[in-house]
């Protein structure tokens, strides 16, 4: 993978400034005082224990879905179906949360997480097998499976898993299955530490183990021309790597769903709407398809999101503005042509050289 360079940082900063400029313009036009809004935005994202905890809480599923994206993309599989894994993972974690009644806290939580991950992984088994043995594009099959997942969980919590007669929802999970919330004023829970651990573990496995090398040898980039013949030429079973990568990706997607149910909602209901699986793709790309990059950009994304929610709560400004701003920012970060065109400036070249020497 290409590492971050000074040029990337420059483009990111420029992108932030331009985004701020656009925000200024939109707010002024719609009759608000931009500096006040900016202050609120900052406060909402970073000021005070409650706001910081909420930012971390929002970041939790993003960290997991971006890591799930990183793994599948770097294996060479363009997995768009992490959202689907999230849904089924969440549903079955909830089921395990109320179904098993005789377990202790640690064993119950572990079992729920395990089941969520297992179901999330199994959800990815079909697209992976179709890709490897029938040549069906995993992009198409995983997109379709996202819809299937939504309808499937909707059926399950209306039918077999429905607990309350008035609303389509599962029973509440038992206390033994809950991920602990530490503070009374925020939903921040143990899931955050799990997510951070997963990001570090993914970094270690991908970069520091022979298993990770075998996974990456057929892919390792955004443009996944699966299968790169390199791995099969070396005798690494590339089909197995592709399937394994998809399963791991699905398992982490399922985990993302599970921690929301176990830590935040404590049950699964029909109106639960996930989009972290899709946003995770953008976040992973901003993080240069590195697990730790995904971790950092998840925190960044969550801060923006939480700031936006705070502004929405305190003022008349629509929270949708955050979506607009994120889009502009992503546009800049992913604009590789802009990055390379910066090379024509002498000072950029010099700074680039200076920074890359420091890194070495």
């Amino acid at each position: 993978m290409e590492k971050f360079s000074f040029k990337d940082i420059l483009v990111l900063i420029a992108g932030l400034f331009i985004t701020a400029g656009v925000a200024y313009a939109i707010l002024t036009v719609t009759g608000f005082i931009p500096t006040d809004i900016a202050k609120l935005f900052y406060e909402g994202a970073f000021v005070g224990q409650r706001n910081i905890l909420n930012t971390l809480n929002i970041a939790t599923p993003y960290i997991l879905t971006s890591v799930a994206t990183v793994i599948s993309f770097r294996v060479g599989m363009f997995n768009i179906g992490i959202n689907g894994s999230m849904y089924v993972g969440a549903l079955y974690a909830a089921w395990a949360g109320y179904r098993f009644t005789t377990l202790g806290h640690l064993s119950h939580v572990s079992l729920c997480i395990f089941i969520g991950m297992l179901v999330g992984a199994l959800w990815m088994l079909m697209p992976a097998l179709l890709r490897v043995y029938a040549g069906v594009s995993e992009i198409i099959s995983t997109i379709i499976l996202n819809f299937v997942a939504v309808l499937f969980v909707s059926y399950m919590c209306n039918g077999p898993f429905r607990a309350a007669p008035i609303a389509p929802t599962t029973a509440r999970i038992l206390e033994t299955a809950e991920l602990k919330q530490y503070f009374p004023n925020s939903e921040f829970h143990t899931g955050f530490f799990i997510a951070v651990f997963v990001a570090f573990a993914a970094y270690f496995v991908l970069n520091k183990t022979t298993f990770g090398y075998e996974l990456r040898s057929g892919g390792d980039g955004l443009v996944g021309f699966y299968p790169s013949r390199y791995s099969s030429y070396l005798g690494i079973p590339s089909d197995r790597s592709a399937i394994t990568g998809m399963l791991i990706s699905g398992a982490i997607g399922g985990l993302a769903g599970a921690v929301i149910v176990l830590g935040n909602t404590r049950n699964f209901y029909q109106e639960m709407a996930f989009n972290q699986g899709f946003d995770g793709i953008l976040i992973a790309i901003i993080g240069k398809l590195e697990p730790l990059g995904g971790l950092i950009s998840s925190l960044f994304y969550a801060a923006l999101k939480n700031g936006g929610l705070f502004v929405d709560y305190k003022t008349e400004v629509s929270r949708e503005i955050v979506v607009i701003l994120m889009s502009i920012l992503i546009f800049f970060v992913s604009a590789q042509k802009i990055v390379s065109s910066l090379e024509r400036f002498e000072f950029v070249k010099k700074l680039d050289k200076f920074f890359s020497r420091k890194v070495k």
Partner: protein
Amino acid sequence: MNKKQKELAIEVKGITKSYPGVVANKSVDFTVNKGEIHALVGENGAGKSTLMKILYGIEQPDEGEVSVNGNVVQINKVDAAIKLGIGMVHQEFHLVPSFTAAENIGLGEEPRNSNGLINWDKLNKDVSEIAEKYGLDVDPNLRMIDASVGVQQRTEILKTLYRNADILILDEPTAVLTPQETDELFQVIRSLVDEGKTVIFITHKLREVMEISDRVTVMRDGEVQGVSETKKTSVKELANLMVGREVFLQVKKEKSKPTDVVLEVKDLWVHDARGLVAVKGVNFEVAKGEIVGIAGVDGNGQTELVEALAGLRDTSRGEILFEGKNIEKNSPRQRRREGLAHIPEDRSNTGLNVRLAIWENLIGTSYFRSPLSRGGIVSMKNILRHSNELRETFDIRSPGVTIRAGSLSGGNQQKVVVARELSEEPALTIASQPTRGVDIGNIEAIHEQIVEIRDSGKAVLLISAELDEVMSVADRVGVIYEGEFVEWVDPSKVNQEQMGLYMAGIKG
């Protein structure tokens, strides 16, 4: 004539161009006379391509100026170059496979009817006329998907002529051609010059320089090393200028002393990707201490034969015996464990994963062993030491081993593959086109390494479309034609013409 200043088609003064980490052109002066064939030679990374990209408007120089036909010009995009009458035929063809020759040639410049639709008749007629004028044998209605490499190249040349190019840049045009096709190309080049065109011919095959060019410019490390009239120089002198040291054009080796048979192929049949029979029941042996060469025009079953031996393609009949054992069912990894190494012909998608770092490509055959990894955990310290050793031994020119393999030049990419495969000290090395795209100094080094392997008692199977290479390196050569061996020869006892006949399928 000599006293008078010749008219210059192109004059380049003091061009400097640097990329991050390298200076590709250092105050280069370069002139091309009108109506001449000017050869530009140099190793990979010498700066030839950069200079031509500047002339063709793909890159902008940091310093210096370019004059075309005596006028100082700014060539800031390709369109500007085309307007000035400069045309370029790239090494990789830029053709639409499903389009016909005429459609490719006219693309973007289609003649229109009065109603605004494309006037196909006029286009076909224009193309035929130009083709006839310069002796370029191209059927305007032939789709490129069905065309041979030679025809595709002629189509590319026609594309530039259709846009009224007076100065043609041909970037390594013979790299993909058979000897016969090369001769045809040279006839075309001569007729172009007869019609008043100017040709810049980039190559690193010095024999061709001597044969076709009027003048020659040699580049090395981004600088011009010398300019000379071709008849006043020699291959030896050019080679030394290119590499910057004494070069031995002949591979030095003792007579081979073959011992035990390592590889035995019996009645092997292999199908190609389309399901057609590509290898038709071949039999041969390779023994320890010898280099067996397979010569032939590309596409006569070499690819399929090599892939079958390396375990990348199923065989339909026959046996592959490696040290007496049938390895037909073994995976590539198992064959490598037995001691079979493979330098594949397709380096960018098979021999390497260009998206991985250099070190990641260098450890592909050894990452699972101590000291590079222990218990599944890689040791970056040992890997970097190992990779840097290979980088030095095999002279891979890069700022470090942590950059992506895709950012290396073709020759250096090939060195990564060769380094990885040969570092395993395999009992048998299958080397398919091991020096394709590699420059002369490094070709010499790779050839020396191959001979060294042989002398240490190992076996080598060398497959190459370069006749010179097979003839000078191999101890025994089989000529393959349409999936069968036409003849087995001793390269020291057969001449080029005879080999050409064998390669065309004509038995002696």
